[in-house]
């Protein structure tokens, strides 16, 4: 179990040593036709002395092409933040060993206990431009030991669901000169044990890639990692359909109905001596989250449900499979 410990790197980070900062924990679960996305995020402003300056808790559930969502904005002044737990009014997240527990109250309440089935991987100090950086601790496959979520039409039991998790922190503010696309894919068939996660960080206009990578896991361990020039990530087409959900919903009053430059899919080709991987992603339903960026603009985080086809060759051993996942694309609106 020690290799899968989520708290080996010191757990939650809290306020950065200087300046503004962000920290968030992200979960995405799949159970049958239900996709569930959960995100707890904290933000610190430069010069503030509060334990937490802003806190948000988000739940998005997609099922049958329809989304429901809830955005909770608990009091940051009453937030309690320790090395292994966050308590935000009626919401709580705790990390102990290889287990992550989350409890969310209010709209779309849920309770989840997840166990790591792979060792976490850390990408340290990913460049966001202008000296800003992001640390990304990723665990592309977890198992929901016990869980439920209450949707408007009834409770969904999540025992046995497979999940993706990441924990991110960095000294930056939304609206700075960056954009990102990252995604994970998990197998369509429950008896397959592979997982893929990829990311690309670029400038705000998406003219330049600053960092990119792809990890392929199988058999409970990392089997292949591709970075930099070993990887080509291409956006294909354009997403024509309007997002099925905007959070907070009132942001929809000032946003165009269509996705802002969100592609209709992605093609990823990775090649290194003795190994290759091809990943074809097709975008399905999409939800978007609007986050204030500076004094006027909005950073839009698109959560795109994807279907995937993968082809992997590792030293002659081949895998062809179908999968499903979520790709997240960050775009900007306004100033």
């Amino acid at each position, binding site marked *: 179990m020690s290799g899968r410990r989520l708290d080996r790197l010191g757990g939650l980070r809290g306020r950065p040593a200087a300046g503004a900062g962000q920290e968030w924990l992200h979960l995405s679960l799949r159970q049958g036709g239900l996709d569930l996305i959960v995100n707890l995020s904290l933000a610190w402003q430069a010069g503030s002395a509060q334990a937490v300056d802003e806190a948000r808790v988000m739940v998005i559930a997609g099922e049958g092409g329809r989304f429901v969502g809830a*955005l909770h904005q608990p009091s940051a002044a009453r937030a309690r933040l320790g090395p292994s737990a966050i308590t935000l009014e009626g919401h709580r997240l705790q990390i102990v060993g290889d287990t992550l527990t989350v409890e969310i109250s209010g709209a779309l309440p849920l309770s989840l206990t997840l166990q790591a089935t792979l060792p976490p991987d850390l990408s340290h100090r990913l460049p966001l431009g202008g000296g800003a950086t992001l640390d990304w601790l990723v665990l592309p496959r977890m198992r929901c030991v016990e869980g439920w979520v209450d949707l408007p039409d009834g409770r969904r039991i999540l025992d046995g669901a497979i999940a993706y998790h990441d924990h991110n922190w960095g000294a930056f503010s939304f609206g700075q000169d960056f954009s990102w696309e990252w995604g994970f894919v998990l197998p369509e068939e429950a008896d397959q044990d592979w997982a893929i996660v990829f990311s690309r960080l670029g400038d705000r206009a998406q003219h330049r890639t600053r960092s990119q990578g792809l990890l392929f896991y199988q058999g409970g361990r990392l089997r292949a990692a591709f970075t930099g020039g070993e990887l080509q990530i291409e956006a294909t087409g354009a997403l024509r359909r309007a997002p099925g959900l905007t959070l907070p919903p009132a942001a929809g009053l000032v946003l165009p109905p269509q996705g802002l430059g969100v592609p209709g899919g992605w093609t990823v080709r990775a090649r290194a001596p003795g190994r290759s991987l091809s990943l074809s992603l097709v975008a399905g339903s999409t939800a978007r989250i609007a986050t204030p960026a500076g004094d006027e603009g909005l950073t839009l985080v698109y959560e795109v449900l994807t279907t995937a086809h993968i082809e992997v060759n590792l030293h002659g051993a081949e895998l062809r499979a179908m999968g499903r996942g979520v790709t997240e694309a960050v775009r900007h609106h*306004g100033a």
Partner: protein
Amino acid sequence: MAPEAPLRPLLARSFAILAAERPAAWARLGDRLRACPIAIALGEAERFVLVAGPSGPLLADEGPARVWVGLESSTVRDLLQGALRLDEAVAADRLRLRGQVEDLLTALDCLDGYVHLSLRSAQSAGLCGELLR
């Protein structure tokens, strides 16, 4: 069915919050409204005018207007919940507008500014939740 909460008191509280939290941006929004007061009729029950005050937008009982907006409280709720877009509301005649095109665009610009400010205020988000409860 319980009667719906009137919009005007919530709007007045929201204005007070934004004036206190972001005075400079609030004053700029008032400046945009100065040449374009907006009369709002919420069903038959509520009528008021958005005007420019000395430090930002204010709610007045009556007064001259350049833009007239009529809608039901159910339309406000659907717009805030994302169940209806502005263009859909106009096309479905659930949002009735009158005024010169230039003034209508100014009103839209004021709405844009108000929403952007509200999205930056946790207290305003709480008021929105109160309205939708």
